[in-house]
């Protein structure tokens, strides 16, 4: 079976994304900060993993008060990461390895150090004044929720210079752009165009629900916001093909659906509500939350795709869960209150799963087999740990651990100079968890992940197929059929830490022979009677159903 085409305009549907932070991936010049040259030197590693598209965290000039999401210049590279030429070389090398790159597009706000804002706040009459949202009082848009609850008390910040408030849905040093101003829309399009012309393959668009504000609303997901996004998409389609716009909209699936439009807004959107429910299902040993959210997910246009993930650079968000579910997640996954931030948990995958290899494998097995394009977060393929005592979400953005040597192989700088300290404890420290060691071990998590990705890529059913849940009476077993044309894959996962038996109603597939996809073992032919399987703790199967 041939792999998916990399030249199709909807290549993102078959892509395997790898999210990384240039700052902490690889430092080539010994200044303690990762850079593009260092990243370029590691592209073979990323390719060998099976990744087909990189997603870079913001690499733009920034005062770094929000780790680069506070952008001071949309059309330049942060000097610490290298030069524009470094970036071009990096892009060429990525493309030469048949991979792609998407970068961050932080549309909702800029840094207060951005030239635009500096001009806007210089006087009330400045032409750029209404590039941002100003108010004489902080009464406007009353009742709109605060997103960074741990640090902000209001969505308005006082500007003493012009004696007005400016609107910010995130940090107070990140003033929101005013998208009611067409000039803002055009300027953002200009920034997009700049990077597309350089050669990036798309953008992960940050914080899209919050672009427009209207009194008496939640200021989220407003029709005018969609109008802005449709404008940007129109421009994109007019000038480019094969590019992707990926929405970061932390909303319920039926609300995120609007961000696909009629295939005239985003090509992709993250499925935020699915992610905490995977963790919930595992802890509850009950498939209910996972099945419910997937079944609740509405259909999307044929050319669109969900982005699914286990972890990313932010906290494990618990915004799209009920209060009961949130309390459960906190009690089960973040007993230490230091691990909790905003409305979420700032931990990496391995510490969340207590370093249990079986659970890590199961979660990755589910990620790679559920509908959508999977996103891997850098370091999770080797089971990196975190440091919850670093501020903000920096604990999950520590340097990549390449080896057991100096600074984990990340940088030759003095450890005190590193942008973030390397994890060095006995359990997750670079001495024991690193790429070099796992490369040498055939059954390491790294090599297992490679094989998992290879198995996924061996069939387009995972990226493009439909999903039907089997609901055996044993609620500890998650079982579903992925189908595409005549190809069918049966996925069976044991969510429990105890061995389980399950009887599956597969009579609609009677006559098919299940072939386990990793070891190619042949299982008994499916008949009319319920198909009995037994699974070890946290075990899972992928079966290709063959008519032979």
């Amino acid at each position, binding site marked *: 079976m041939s792999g998916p085409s990399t030249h199709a305009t909807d290549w993102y549907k078959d892509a395997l994304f790898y999210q990384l932070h240039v700052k902490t991936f690889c430092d080539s010049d010994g200044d303690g900060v990762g850079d593009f040259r260092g990243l370029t030197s590691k592209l073979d590693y990323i390719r060998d993993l099976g990744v087909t598209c990189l997603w870079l965290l913001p690499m733009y000039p920034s005062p770094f008060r929000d780790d680069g999401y506070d952008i001071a210049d949309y059309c330049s590279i942060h000097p610490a990461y290298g030069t524009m030429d470094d970036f071009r070389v990096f892009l060429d090398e990525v493309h030469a390895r048949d991979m792609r790159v998407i970068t961050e597009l932080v549309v909702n706000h800029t840094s207060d150090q951005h030239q635009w804002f500096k001009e806007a706040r210089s006087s009330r009459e400045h032409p750029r004044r209404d590039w941002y949202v100003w108010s004489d009082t902080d009464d406007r848009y009353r009742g709109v929720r605060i997103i960074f609850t741990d640090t902000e008390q209001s969505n308005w910040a006082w500007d003493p210079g012009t004696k007005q408030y400016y609107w910010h849905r995130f940090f107070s040093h990140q003033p929101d752009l005013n998208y009611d101003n067409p000039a803002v829309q055009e300027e953002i399009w200009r920034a997009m165009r700049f990077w597309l012309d350089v050669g990036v393959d798309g953008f992960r668009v940050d914080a899209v629900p919050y672009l427009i504000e209207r009194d008496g609303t939640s200021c989220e997901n407003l029709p005018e916001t969609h109008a802005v996004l449709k404008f940007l998409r129109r421009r994109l389609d007019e000038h480019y093909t094969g590019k992707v716009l990926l929405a970061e909209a932390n909303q319920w699936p039926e609300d995120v659906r609007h961000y696909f439009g009629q295939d005239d807004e985003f090509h992709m959107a993250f499925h935020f509500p699915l992610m905490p429910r995977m963790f*919930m299902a595992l802890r*509850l*040993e*009950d*498939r*209910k*939350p996972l099945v419910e959210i997937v079944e609740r997910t509405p259909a999307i246009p044929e050319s669109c795709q969900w982005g699914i993930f286990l972890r990313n650079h932010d906290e494990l968000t618990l915004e799209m869960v*009920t209060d*009961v*579910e949130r309390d*459960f997640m906190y009690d089960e996954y973040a007993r230490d209150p230091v691990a909790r931030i905003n409305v979420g948990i700032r931990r990496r995958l391995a510490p969340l799963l207590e370093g249990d290899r079986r659970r890590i494998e199961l979660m990755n097995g589910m990620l790679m087999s559920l509908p959508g394009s999977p996103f891997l977060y850098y370091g999770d393929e080797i089971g990196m740990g975190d440091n919850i005592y670093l501020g903000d979400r920096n604990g999950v953005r520590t340097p990549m651990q390449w080896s057991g040597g100096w600074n984990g192989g990340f940088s030759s700088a003095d450890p005190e100079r590193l942008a973030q300290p390397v994890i060095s404890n006995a359990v997750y420290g670079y001495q024991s968890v690193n790429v070099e060691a796992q490369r040498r071990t055939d059954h390491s998590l790294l090599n297992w992940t490679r094989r998992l990705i290879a198995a996924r890529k061996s069939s387009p059913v995972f990226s493009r197929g439909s999903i039907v849940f089997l609901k*055996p*009476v*044993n*609620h*500890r077993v998650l079982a579903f059929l992925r189908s595409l044309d005549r190809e069918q894959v049966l996925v069976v996962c044991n969510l*429990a830490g*105890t061995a*389980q*038996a399950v009887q599956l109603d597969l009579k609609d597939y009677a006559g098919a022979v299940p072939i386990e996809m990793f070891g190619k073992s042949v299982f008994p032919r499916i008949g009319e009677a319920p198909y009995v399987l037994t699974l070890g703790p946290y075990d899972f199967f992928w079966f290709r159903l063959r008519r032979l």
Partner: protein
Amino acid sequence: MPQPSLLTDDLVQQLMAVGQVDILVGIPTLNNASTIGPVVRAVHLAFARYFQRERTVLINSDGGSEDGTPAIVRDLSLDEPDTLVVRHALRTTHRISAPYHGVPGKGSALRQIFAAADLLQARAVAVLDPDVTSVTPEWVRALVAPVVGDGFGFVAPVYARHPLDGPLVTQLVRPLLRAAYGLRLAEPQAAEFGCSGRFAADCVELDVWDTPLAQFGIDLWLTGRAIASGCRLCQAPLGPRTVATGTHRPGLSETFGQVVGSLFTLLGTQADTWLPRTGSDPLPVLGPPAPPPAEPARLDGERLLQSFGTNVRDLKSVLDAILVPETESALEAAALGQPADLRFPDDLWVATVYQFLAAHHQGVMRREHVTQALLPLYLARTGSFVLQHAGTDAASVDAALEALCLEFERAKPYLVQRWTGAPSR
């Protein structure tokens, strides 16, 4: 010869799918189609509201209903607005209905429920009566929370009822059990109770299930077993208990025979436990008691006393074999006069009960005849008590019932002597 299984293959399959649970609620049924729905709904609401994180299951053990009760249990929809919280529960809800095999009766149903609890390693078990229309989700919480949260082994209910209601309990079962076991249990033979999974599992292997006690007196037996096994007991106020009207219930004679027969038999089998005990200790009551109804159920005391005299005369030859001459003479004396003037004092009633109990134990005649002979005397005693306290407030009646209990306790040495001594004649 292999032992017959308590759990059918189909039930085992279903239980396998449920897996280990924290809380199991059991409902034994037989033709309860008209009342089972709200009970099942209340259980699921309790799970969703009060035990969101616990693994739960509802098991209906059915005795061969012909009115579709099991189907109602299995197919009950939880899509109404008031049960939406169940749909949004954290965990999969489990609901099983299965027939039980064995001697028809609540005992076999309970044994199946206990066996299921054992298999599923349930931490707490609660049992509900399908005929009760006043069941609320708070009942389940009240019966389960003390086990799950505070480690109690057995939770007996406390119903909110007028002290003149339920005379068989207040005049006989409660004071006799209190004096015997030394524990102030308000409802010793309640159909609803909670217990630990360990208690339930221990009960499965005992010999009681094939005896008549399991058929007609299992509730009493379980209470006695809980006391005898030394597990921590407590009581939980549930509020008023309302049974559906129109439910077919046995008549008083049959009920009395079952209850008193079971009570006497229970005391007979656990004599080693209660004989040495003296006095009585209160049991913790977890939760605020609900106010009792203002008006008692209507009992015509005079009507109950109408046949007292003739009954004593008619039963003389039977009473000769059971009672000592002094007690019999006192009864005859008490039975003289107009019904409205008759009185059956506490000490005479206590002496009568104790002598009947001793006669039952010693088998002076067929044991069913002993209990049947007590019924007319019980009715007379009840009639006398009702007449004596007609028009008084509930607090006064409570005080009188407490005095009766104390009389039972005070006369216990007499019972011990009768129990271990020679027959009455």
